[in-house]
């Protein structure tokens, strides 16, 4: 076990300088996914096309509001923004409404979102495991829901 504690000098900064996304695009990080948006509005708020919402955070615009499963958030006027003759969905205002934390590097057009607290409530209150999606080493998508009917041990470790 001891050898695993040492750093890997040759791997300290192994990555080449490459563009994060094509010129003019925007990147959103959420739940381990990296979503590249070709079109967004201008300014310090993240304004996205309504049709990009499901890909970005799983919510969908419906007559009753922005919905994820049973959770529907009524859309207030300030969430829909007119700019250059087009309507945009203000994703950062939506995050603020949901108490969802985020960090943005506006210069690089990257927004990184933390988990939405309302989606964690079933774990924090009822001890129900939250669903997640992550790829295994073979490239299979692993979802918590896949293990219904089985006992699962999720264990973390690290090389460091």
């Amino acid at each position, binding site marked *: *076990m*001891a050898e*695993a*504690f*040492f*750093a*890997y*000098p040759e*791997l*300290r*900064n*192994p*990555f*080449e*300088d*490459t*563009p*994060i996304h094509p010129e003019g695009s925007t990147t959103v*990080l959420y739940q*381990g996914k*990296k979503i590249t948006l070709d079109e967004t509005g201008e300014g310090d708020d993240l304004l996205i096309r309504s049709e990009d919402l499901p890909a970005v955070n799983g919510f969908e615009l419906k007559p009753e509001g922005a919905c994820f499963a049973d959770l529907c958030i009524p859309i207030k006027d300030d969430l829909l923004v007119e700019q250059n003759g087009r309507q945009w969905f203000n994703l950062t205002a939506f995050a603020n409404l949901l*108490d969802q*934390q*985020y*960090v943005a*590097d506006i210069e*690089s057009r*990257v927004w*990184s979102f*933390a*988990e939405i*607290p309302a989606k964690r409530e079933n*774990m*924090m209150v*009822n*001890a*129900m*495991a*939250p669903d*997640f999606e*992550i790829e*295994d*080493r073979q490239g299979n998508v*692993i979802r*918590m*829901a896949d*293990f*219904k*009917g*089985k*006992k*699962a*041990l*999720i*264990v*973390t*470790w*690290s*090389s*460091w």
Partner: protein
Amino acid sequence: MPVWQQVYEEVNDPNFVIICVAEDTGGEAVAGPIFDAANPSYIQIIDQDHMISSIFNFVNVPSAAWIDEDGRIVRIDEGTYSKVHEMGDGDQSITFGNDVYSPAIKDWVAKGADSEHVQSAETVTGNIRQHTDDQLKADAAFRLGNLFRNHGKAAKADHYWNMAKELNPDSINFIRQNLTLSEEGSAGETFMNLMGQYMAEGKEFYRPLDIE
């Protein structure tokens, strides 16, 4: 990792899965060979964004969640060791780990809800760390830094990793992952000093293990 393969083989129950997650921004290059050496048949994930730790509010490795057939967490956030380890020398040496955890897992798989190691929802929710808005934001900052590092932008990567460490100073994961980039590595003087400070402040790396 061999220990989990051993547990998996000994239990040998088609209704039991082990999902083993490496929290390693270095990815396959650093975690892959360690997995391979264990010759594992369980599910192996290399979680470069530390997403699993973030989902369960873990601040250190190794940690774990036991999840039953209905998706209920029945134990969470304990140091998942299979034996007692010693780290460092002389005055600075520390011992950690235990040899009761893996037998408890086997008992749970065999007996299910009747196992004495299954905890109530109330106990489990009491053991899930309550993360503040800042701590949740730290996860977002860490991932942002990670994206920049993966694209060779070290200055921005360092900026957001530092932000993550400041927003969640309890995260041993962030501190040690960051130290892997330093000359002294993740278990050098800086880490040993931090660990001493952490313990002096009465902070817990994990929830207390109440298995006899």
